[in-house]
């Protein structure tokens, strides 16, 4: 995971990008909607993985930054009539500043205490969105966002999402494979040792938290445009749990794993909802399978299968 991209991986990325660019030409509205949502969720899950996979800190409150990005974008566009060129950067900035603030507290703690504190702050964000009716419209949801004219319509919105998500993921990839990313993995692997080669581990974890929150903010602001609304549920802990499951399902020790997890989980949810209303039950079952049989997620499983067939078993 720490070496630059291999040739097959690069080819894979290119193919996915081409496929995504072609989907609107098929003219299937449903397929387009599903794909847009998956792209947004993939970015959301990849952002969380900077914290979980790369820095080794589990967050139970990642939805907070997604919601802050989304609500800010929605409110600035609609209540303040600001152009999207202002509203989107500002909404990402808000998510980033919120992450900076929360991370300052959370990174004083480690392990389960860290995780619980991220949850506590996320519940605070949820409570504010719920109660601040004048601004957010509370539990009725903030609906009917003013979408800028150039994004009005399924196809423009699709390509806008594709461009922003692709650029964001490229940047995330660079950060995860930068000098910072490499040392971050060392911090995950052994905090004591990393401290003793001169790394301020708390500041490293703080930075990872801010990166994660910022990119979640981007995902959230896109989500608001796509749904043309934001709802308090988007800030609730169940949303944080869902993105966590996506990350684990795909595989946290691989850069692209969480994106795969997001796609698979979302497809499963859509398919399940077609036949039954018991999606949460199915989700629980999926979580069980991951925890018991797929500790390294789908990517880990694929690697195991590949190693078996190539017969080496030692290659990683």
């Amino acid at each position, binding site marked *: 995971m*720490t*070496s*630059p991209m291999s040739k097959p991986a690069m080819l894979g990325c290119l193919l996915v990008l081409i496929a995504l660019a072609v989907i609107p030409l098929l003219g299937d509205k449903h397929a387009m909607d599903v794909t847009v949502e998956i792209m947004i969720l993939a970015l959301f899950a990849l952002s969380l993985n900077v914290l979980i996979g790369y820095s080794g800190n589990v967050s139970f409150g990642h939805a907070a930054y997604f919601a802050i990005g989304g609500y800010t974008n929605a409110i600035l566009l609609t209540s303040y009539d600001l152009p999207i060129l202002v509203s989107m950067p500002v909404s990402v900035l808000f998510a980033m500043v919120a992450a900076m603030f929360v991370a300052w507290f959370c990174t004083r703690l480690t392990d389960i205490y860290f995780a619980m504190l991220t949850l506590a702050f996320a519940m605070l964000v949820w409570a504010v969105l719920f109660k601040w009716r004048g601004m957010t419209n509370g539990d009725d949801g903030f609906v009917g966002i003013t979408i800028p004219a150039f994004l009005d319509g399924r196809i423009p919105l699709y390509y806008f999402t594709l461009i922003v998500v692709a650029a964001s993921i490229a940047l995330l990839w*660079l*950060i995860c*494979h*930068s*000098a*910072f*990313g*490499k*040392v971050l*993995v*060392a911090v995950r*692997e*052994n905090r*004591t*040792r*990393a*401290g*003793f*080669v*001169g*790394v*301020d*581990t708390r*500041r*490293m974890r703080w*930075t990872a938290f801010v*990166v994660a929150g910022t990119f979640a903010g981007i995902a959230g602001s896109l989500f608001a445009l796509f749904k043309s609304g934001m709802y308090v549920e988007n800030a609730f802990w169940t949303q944080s749990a869902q993105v966590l499951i996506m990350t684990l399902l795909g595989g946290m*020790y691989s850069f692209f794993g969480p994106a795969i997890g997001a796609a698979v989980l979302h497809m499963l949810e859509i398919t399940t909802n077609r036949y039954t209303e018991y999606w949460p039950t199915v989700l629980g079952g999926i979580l069980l399978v991951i925890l018991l049989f797929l500790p390294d997620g789908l990517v880990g499983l694929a690697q195991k299968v590949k190693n078996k067939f190539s017969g080496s078993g030692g290659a*990683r």
Partner: protein
Amino acid sequence: MAILETQNLMKDFGGFVATNNVSLELREGERHAIIGPNGAGKTTFFNLITGHLLPSSGTVMFEGKDITGMVPHKLVRLGVARSFQRINIYPRMTVFENVQVALIARDNNHFNLFSLGEPHNRQDTKELLELVGLVEEAPEIAGELSYGKQKQLELAIALAENPRVLLLDEPTAGMSPQETTEAIALVDRITKDRGLTLLFTEHDMGVVFGIADRISVLHHGEIIASGLPEEVRNDPEVRRVYLGESLDGEGH
């Protein structure tokens, strides 16, 4: 002049005094061993020096500067490096990356978010791996190395920081006699070549008398003797503490 010095260092774990009034001077360039029976407080003493534990009282000085309780990442920048008694590497990273990460940190590039990590410090990393004899193992996953090799790797990580004082906590713990001999020859050579000041704890007397210039003996958290190897060996108090054990430098 002392490069590292502790003054009346004391650590009280709720009534249990693990380190009691320890004053020790480490002279620049010397190789100083701390010995003592199990539970004598050797590791606690190390942890007090390196800021992993806060002393109940007393101070730690580095080149005349008070460094008591200084956090490790700042201490390293001053030139104090350490290894740990229990293996302390990054198990899921490659051997190469284990060392490379230390060099990235040394050069203050660890907050560089937008340059690829891969090309950083490749040459220095290779040189350090050559120094400790791990070139062939470079692409292997560190956690899969043999115990002795992991210890060598840890030494390379510690050396990557370009330290002036090296603290090794039981560098040969858990090693086979063969590995012990090799490891000590390595430490001996490197500290001589680089003019490092070395402070180490060790239970193998062969190792201690083989490379130490001076020896201090800890017993129940107190230093009961300190001096040249010959003086310490013949000290009646030390002989009494090590009742029945060989202090003749032949190992065991």
